[in-house]
């Protein structure tokens, strides 16, 4: 009789576990795809400069210190939204912010930087999404944090807002600089 009562709890427990699991699944944003490259070395690439007089960059330049890489485009509205926070970050932060200008026309990108300001220490242009695919970029803006060994440690999909900066990005940079 007792065994029967315990047995009756088995499907109920299984159902509850499944329900909690699925409910948790509903809370996550399906548009945010976790990066396959976390803790992986930066893919090999070399991007030509966008701005005359400012260097482009490649994976060989991403060594010896922590870097932030921000993927942006002038046609991208969320990039415009995050731009002031990126300016702040570049002004406050001790780590260089490098930009990848993604699927954009150089003239448009230059006009955009002239209008809003240029937070980037270096900018590479990737008009045909060759390097973007290597990084697993599927939309702009995206922001990556690279550690001193040249490994990708963090990826932010979508604009970086002050909360994300304060709660995730800046603490992680501090950790990595250790």
């Amino acid at each position: 009789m007792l065994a029967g009562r315990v047995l009756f709890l088995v499907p109920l427990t299984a159902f509850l576990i499944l329900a909690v699991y699925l409910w948790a699944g509903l809370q996550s944003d399906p548009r945010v795809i976790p990066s396959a490259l976390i803790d992986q070395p930066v893919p090999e690439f070399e991007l030509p400069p966008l701005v005359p007089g400012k260097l482009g960059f490649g994976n060989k330049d991403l060594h010896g210190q922590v870097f932030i890489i921000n993927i942006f485009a002038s046609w991208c509205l969320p990039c415009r939204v995050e731009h002031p926070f990126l300016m702040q970050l570049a002004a406050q932060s001790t780590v260089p912010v490098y930009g990848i200008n993604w699927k954009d026309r150089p003239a448009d990108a230059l006009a955009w930087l002239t209008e809003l300001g240029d937070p980037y220490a270096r900018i590479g242009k990737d008009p045909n999404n060759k390097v973007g695919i290597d990084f697993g970029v599927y939309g702009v803006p995206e922001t990556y944090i690279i550690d001193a060994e040249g490994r990708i440690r963090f990826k932010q999909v979508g604009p970086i807002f002050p909360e994300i900066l304060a709660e995730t990005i800046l603490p992680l940079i501090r950790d990595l600089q250790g």
Partner: protein
Amino acid sequence: MIRAAVLCAILFTFASGADAVEPSEVLVDPILESRARALSTHIRCLVCQNQSIDDSNADLARDLRILVRERLVSGDSDQGVLDYLSSRYGDFVLLKPPIKPKTWALWFGPIGIFLMAFTGAAFYFHRHRHATQQGSDQLAEDEARQISKLLGEDDEQQP
């Protein structure tokens, strides 16, 4: 009316999904192109997530279609292309996820739940039938006793 319905049925039968592949993307080599097309139907467009890159008009899907073709032209195998893409975008980019410990729940979960339900139901029905059988036996004994009692009483009254 019927003729219109039949016409509609025929048209819908032969209508295929609109392909997103643009003429400029198509490879000259028909064998490579057909491989690229087949492969593209297995690759998820990450912008419009429930379409393959073969169906999707998204800009990223176009980039990926071109990349698939470039890789095939340069001699990469079908599996090589899929491996490269999943190393960049994760297994999510594959419309048919690979079988590995992380996806066991996905692949075997439904069968597991069915087996659990089946076992549970079998157990329940088995016990239920067993219980009713036992019950009827007991009832029959009671009834027999009652009947014999009644009969006994009858015996005393009747002679």
